[in-house]
Every structure is written in structure tokens, then in C-alpha cells.
């Protein structure tokens, strides 16, 4: 999976720190954005293969955030994955409403994050 670019969007720098560590250990190239300014800055000069985003940021709700990321990435084939500690049912519903391609629950911890991302990059089941 060398060279696959993963963008992590979360308002918590703790989650970003752990997620980045785990994904980089698995060979992904990871960039993070903690707010909209950072998101814009990252996307101006870097193009992700997959975007993992929290559903809520202080500035925007999940739907607006997804719309914004989709517009900025401007490519349909970049999977957008919602990542949250909401319950599975709630998250699945929200993912559908936001037009996200998949979702990951943070409730099980982040240990399994790299293998889920790997599966998603390969177009496997979410």
C-alpha cells in the first residue's frame, strides 16, 4: 500500500495523532486536517486517495463537511469515509445522508483502522 494517500480529518489532535501513527506504520502516506483552514491548505497542494473524516467539526456539521470535501477533492473515485464514535445504526444512516462511501466506528478503537483502510483502498467491503 506504499504511496496511497490518506487524508484524516478530525477536530481532535489526539485521534489524528493516533490514526496517523497507525496508518503510517502500515505504509500509508498520511496528512491530517484539524479544521477547515488546514483542510483547504492540504487539499490545495495534495491529492488524497481516500478521505477519513469525523462527522462533526466545530465549524461544520457532517453533511456540510462531506459536501465540502467532495467539492474540493473534485473526484468521484476518492472514497469518503465517515469515522465517528456514534452508534453503528446512526452512523450508517448519517453516511447515507452525507453521501459518504463508507463508515468506520471509532467505538472499537483505532487498532483495526489500517486494515479497514486497506480494504477500502482496494475497493473491498466497508
Amino acid at each position, binding site marked *: 500500500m506504499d504511496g496511497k494517500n490518506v487524508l484524516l480529518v478530525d477536530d481532535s489532535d*489526539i485521534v489524528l495523532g493516533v490514526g496517523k501513527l497507525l496508518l503510517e506504520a502500515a505504509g500509508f502516506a498520511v496528512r491530517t486536517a484539524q479544521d477547515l483552514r488546514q483542510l483547504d491548505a492540504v487539499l490545495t497542494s495534495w491529492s488524497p486517495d481516500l478521505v477519513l473524516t469525523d462527522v462533526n467539526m466545530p465549524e461544520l456539521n457532517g453533511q456540510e463537511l462531506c459536501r465540502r470535501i467532495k467539492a474540493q477533492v473534485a473526484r468521484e473515485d476518492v472514497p469518503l469515509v465517515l469515522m465517528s464514535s456514534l452508534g453503528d445504526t446512526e452512523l450508517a444512516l448519517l453516511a447515507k445522508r452525507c453521501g459518504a462511501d463508507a463508515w468506520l466506528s471509532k467505538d472499537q478503537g483505532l487498532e483495526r483502522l489500517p486494515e479497514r483502510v486497506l480494504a477500502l483502498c482496494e475497493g473491498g467491503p466497508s
Partner: protein
Amino acid sequence: MQPNALPPELISRFRAVSLERIERIEAAWATAIQEPDKRHVSQEILRDLHTLKGDAKAVGFAEVNRLTHRLEDLVVAAQEHGFHVPDDLDLVVTMGLRFAAVLMRKKAGGALGGIDLDGFIRQVDEVLAEMQRMPRPRARTIDEDVPLPLDPGVTDQLAVETLHKLAAVATSMWLEWRAGGRRSSRLRRAFDELSAQVTRLRAVPLGARLRRHVHGLPELARELGKHVALELELGDVQVAPAVADAIDTAVMHALRNAVDHGVERPELRRLAGKPAMARLSVICQPLGDELLVHIEDDGQGVDRERVRCRGLELGLLDGAAECSDEQLLSLLFMPGFSTRRVVSEVSGRGMGLDAVRTGLSRLGGRISLASTPGHGTTVTIVVPRQWNALDVRRLDGTGGVVLALPACWDVVEQDRAAPTRVLDPLERLGLGTGGPGTLLVVRSGALELGLRLAAQAGMLVRAARVCPTADDHPCEVLRAEGEELLLVRPDGLELGGEVT
């Protein structure tokens, strides 16, 4: 990753951030209990709890995670009762937050240090059950649509907006140069320099965008039982993001078409005396103001006979008439054209090349295809390198005129059915637009008035931006690759006096 494997500085950061967060939640909780009107405070509490829960899980503080989850339930229950809550609930929330702070200070996975977490959680559950039995003061559950008291668009996008403004300045400068009869070469040089800098600020390396195909394409080919290797010869070309997107989409479609239609299966390639592994390449070639991108394959080339049959079938060709090779190949770019009867996973949906061509033409680019039977196909994309020197948005107007509006202008779109009174100033200039929406350009400083009038007229506001002001002519004709764009400037539009 085990909590112990995390760097200690990340754990200390988690502790510091979370203790601060708990203090904030405690203060907000006190406010919510004392002043139930301040509903937005509960949103802040829930957001902080939610983040705390996620962080705790991420760094392996399972007890904090478990506790926070219950605290969320308690706050939601309080919210459902408009924060008119029994003392019991207030007490468990306050205690829960204190416990969380204590748990935060101990090592992840370490002993609980005298806290009976299970006992406490049982207590929480009892309080929650009691809340369930209480009548709700208002028939209102948590309303997801409650607007947050935050103003999006204030804190974000500073850099991006500055860039937009610079692009707007460049557009104004260009308009001034045109209005002045194109005489000032110094103004023109200043514009060229400014637009070059703006373009450079926005530029992205094309290689980074296209590199993913090097891995993706062979995988795709394998699914179809074919072997391909992709080479990129891109140099260090930098282009505007929109150009990169258009090129990327075009390259993706061309490569997929090549793998699906062009490249033969290994056994057929061997029979034809070719190596089993097909070679595909994407070559980038800057040429003056334009950028050429060639997508080449060494497959079987376009099957002319099949294209001819399909063209006849769709009524795109006249059976009796002769048709040149060029005309035949141009059919591949027709909407809905595909020689595939069965839609394959990879391409063959008959929308690829047509959509690609439309996308490119928006940027003033074009696409062509050359193919030698038995030897392969080359798709060539041509895009202008500095297309965005003028930052405009395109809109189809009446009578085949395409309007180009500086992207920085206030634009109000109107529903077709709504009264056209507000549109008078535009129509006087012959700029009334047809199409699915109607356009209103609002003078700088008149945005509020424009929006008010638009609302009165039942208009739908799609975009609103600040426009630059200048005098003289209201519009300029801009030629772009075989079509005329009418570049409109709002300065001639006297909106206020006309309509009220």
C-alpha cells in the same frame, strides 16, 4: 496498537487536552442547569464529551471511554427535559466528570485506584431509568436540525479567500487593460505577472495526481485477465487544480478504455507477436501556452468495423454515404456511444469520452484520438496551461451567447417562474439569460439590496460574492478556443434606482 506502544508525548497531550475539556464541560453544565434557556451550551457539552470519548478510545483509556459514554446519555436525558433535572442527575454528572478526571491521571489499562466504576455506572443507569419515567416538559427530543450558534465561513478559508481576491484583482486589471483600448503594455505586463503568480499559488503537481494509476491500472487489468504496465513521463509539470482534475478524469477514462477495449488478452498478444504484457504510457509535453498529454497503448487499435456498425445502429451514420476515418473515430466521442453490448465493470457505459470532452472544453481544452489497427491507440488531450488567469464562471445565455462572469461577483440566480422585474437592468444590456436559472449580477455594495429584492421576487440565491468596481463598459467579449465568452462587468448595472 497497544496504549503502551503510543509515544508518551501523545499520552501527555491527551491528558492535558482532556483535563481542560472536563473543566470546560463542568462549567458549561453548571450554566445549562442554572440557565436552561442557553440551549446551545448543551451542544458544546455534547461535542466535548463526544471528542473526549473518541480520544479516550483512541489512546486506550477504556474506562474513561465507558464513563464518557454514560455521561453523554445523561446530558441527552437532561436536554430532553429542558435541563429541568432532579438533583440526582446533576450529582451523577458532576461525580462522573470528577471520576473521569481521576481516571485520566492514571496509566492506561492500570488499576482503578479505589474507584468503583461498575457501581457508579449502575447508579447512572438507575438515574437514567428514572428520567425515562418522568414526563417530558416539551414534546421535543434532540433536534438534529437545531442550528448551531456558530457562524461557518467566518473562521475558515482565509488563505483561499485571499487567493480568490487576488484572482479578482487580476480580472479587474485585465478589464481595465481592455477598456483602455489595450494600449498600456505596462498594465498588461502587470496583469500577466499577477495572473502568473496566482496560477502558481494554486498549482498542483500533475504527477502526484496521476501516479495512483500506476498501481490501480494493472490491478484493474488483472480483473479482466490482461497484463499491463503503465509508465508516466510527466516531468515536473504544475497545473491549476481544476486543470489537474480535468486531465486526471480524461486520463482515467482513456486508460480504462485502453484496458477494456484496446489491450488484447495475453494469448492473443502472443499470437500477434507482441509481448504478453501490454505497455501503456502517459506522456506530458508542454508546448507554448498549452499542455499536451498523450495516453498511448500498444493494443489492437479501434475496431473500425464495429464502430461503423454501432454508428449505423444508432443512426449516427448514413449507410450509403462514405465516411472518412476521422469522421468514424469522432463517433467515439458522441454521447451514449459504446460498442460494448454488455456494460463492463471497467468502461463501456458509453458516457466516458463524451463527458471527458465536455469537461475539457469547459477549460478551453480538447481531446482527439488516433489509432492504427493492430498497433494501438493514442488519445491526446490539449489544455491551456494558464486557463485560470481570468477567474470567471460560465453561464449559458440566450442566443448562443456564453456569459463569463468574474468569479468574484455577486450572482443571484432566479427561478424561471419568478417575476423578471429585478432582471430589467440586465435585460436592458441584452444579458437576460435563459436556461434553467436566470442570473442577476449585483453591483458591489448593493448586495443587501439585491438579496432583499431577490427574496421579494421569490428568487433562489445560489451564490453571493463581492464584486470589484470599475467604470466604463459593462461587458467585454472574450474569445476562447472557437467560442465567444461575453465577460460581463456589473458596473453598468444601476440596480437600486431602477427597481425599487
